[in-house]
């Protein structure tokens, strides 16, 4: 007999005890064309980690919308960037948001960074049947504050579709435009002046917006940045003092600087 009693502080076990399963679902061969979202990336800059994403969602050759927020604040010290199928990815974000806050409030201490990283891996593994059938694939990026070091340091993680987790060194990117972005980030890391780790917030935001501009030239599924049309990106930074959103107004100022 399966014990369905909730494990202390574990929101997923509370859901299971109430017979609610948020992610698992069977797919059908007659599944509709999937909506997908790309491109997201994160890199270390002088104050912490910058995480950004374009705002386009596509379904086949159709542009569904240019107003998607793919970088999501999970809690005060965690960020998630989603690439893949938004329906699944947004649900994963919601599960993580509720789980992390539930643990912090019920146990009166925040979840550790390794536990947060594994919680996302667990959701990806739960989504494995959908991933294997090519429906509902999600390849996210995660950034969290490591409080085991002083001062607390923001770290970037990336995942494969089966849920394997990897800590990124310097940067990570995911989605259809990620090839272009990885190449530029690698170049900048090796030869750039300044290197991303030395960039100020303004320089990092300007660099991130330019990365998306270039990526959108080579990938139709990546929405561009157009100051004239006031189309910008979703950009959040994770610093020792937590998450901060760089809004479109600030993005415009940094881009013009």
């Amino acid at each position, binding site marked *: 007999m399966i014990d369905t009693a909730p494990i202390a502080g574990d929101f997923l076990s*509370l859901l299971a005890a109430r017979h*609610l399963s*948020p992610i698992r679902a069977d797919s059908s061969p007659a599944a509709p064309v999937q909506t997908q979202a790309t491109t997201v990336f994160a890199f270390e800059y002088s104050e912490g980690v910058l995480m950004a994403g374009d705002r386009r969602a596509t379904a086949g050759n159709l542009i569904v919308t240019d107003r998607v927020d793919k970088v999501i604040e999970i809690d005060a010290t965690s960020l998630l960037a989603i690439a893949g199928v938004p329906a699944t990815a947004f649900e994963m974000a919601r*599960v993580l948001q*509720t789980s992390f*806050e*539930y643990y912090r*409030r*019920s146990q009166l201490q925040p979840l550790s960074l390794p536990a947060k990283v594994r919680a996302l891996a667990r959701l990806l593994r739960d989504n494995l049947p959908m991933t294997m059938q090519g429906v509902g694939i999600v390849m996210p990026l995660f950034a969290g504050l490591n409080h085991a070091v002083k001062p607390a340091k923001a770290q970037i993680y990336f995942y494969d579709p089966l849920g394997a987790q990897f800590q990124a060194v310097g940067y990570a990117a995911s989605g259809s435009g990620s090839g272009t972005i990885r190449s530029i980030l690698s170049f900048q890391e090796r030869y750039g002046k300044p290197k991303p780790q030395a960039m100020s917030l303004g320089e990092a935001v300007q660099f991130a917006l330019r990365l998306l501009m270039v990526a959108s030239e080579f990938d139709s599924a990546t929405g561009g940045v157009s100051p004239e049309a006031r189309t910008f990106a979703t950009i959040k930074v994770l610093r020792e003092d937590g998450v901060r*959103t760089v809004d479109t107004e600030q993005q415009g100022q940094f881009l013009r600087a």
Partner: protein
Amino acid sequence: MIEEPYRWLEAIGNRREYVREQIKGGSPVFGASLADGILLLGVGSGNSKVFELFDRHALVGLGHPADIEKIRQAAIDAAHMEAFTRAPEDVSLRRLVSFGLSPQLKTNFEQIFSAPFLVELLLAEVGAHPENDLLLRLHFDGGFKTHSKGAVVVASQPDPETAAQSWLAQALADKADRGQVADLMLQAWWCLTENKSLAENPPSEDERRAGWRNAINGKIVEIGWLARQSQRQARFDMLTLNQVGL
């Protein structure tokens, strides 16, 4: 024995006396709706009086730690399930208490062969505007009263609680500064714990202030703040005396 109505009433009366006797040494706690948010205050040992429940909700209470913990956990479970299955905006203190906590407490209190909950509680929900704030005083027997403004005092005995509440309501009039409010709450806390009357001839302000300063040695003043405006979903923060300027 309890088949007879009189016996049952007597047993319930005894139970009420038993609960009040058990919690009579409990340290009073306070809540007040201010222009920028809701301030909750208790004096305990850290993580023992003031608790975050959900994005806009918090709890402050006195009584047996195990019983406070059970109710806190039940409220957190219910709030997060509601937020996940519907939306965070659907979590409301009125529903949480009137459909969840209050009936459970009442049932438990009237089951006279089980141990009663030894708690007195105040739950708070910060609104978009001060008039939308909700301070909900919940008793060990499931009875509750809602307040949408001013200050609420939670003490182990009803009469001193009423006296402290009316004194605090007058003293807090037009006070918006968190430091001033916390100072007045601590003055009331000292008077209640030292059995000083706040209704007739209360101690002077200097005496009250020196009293709480002296009495908190070795204790932790727990101050919870539910901010009305914030970029974050979670509006709750724990503050120190230094952070409120005391």
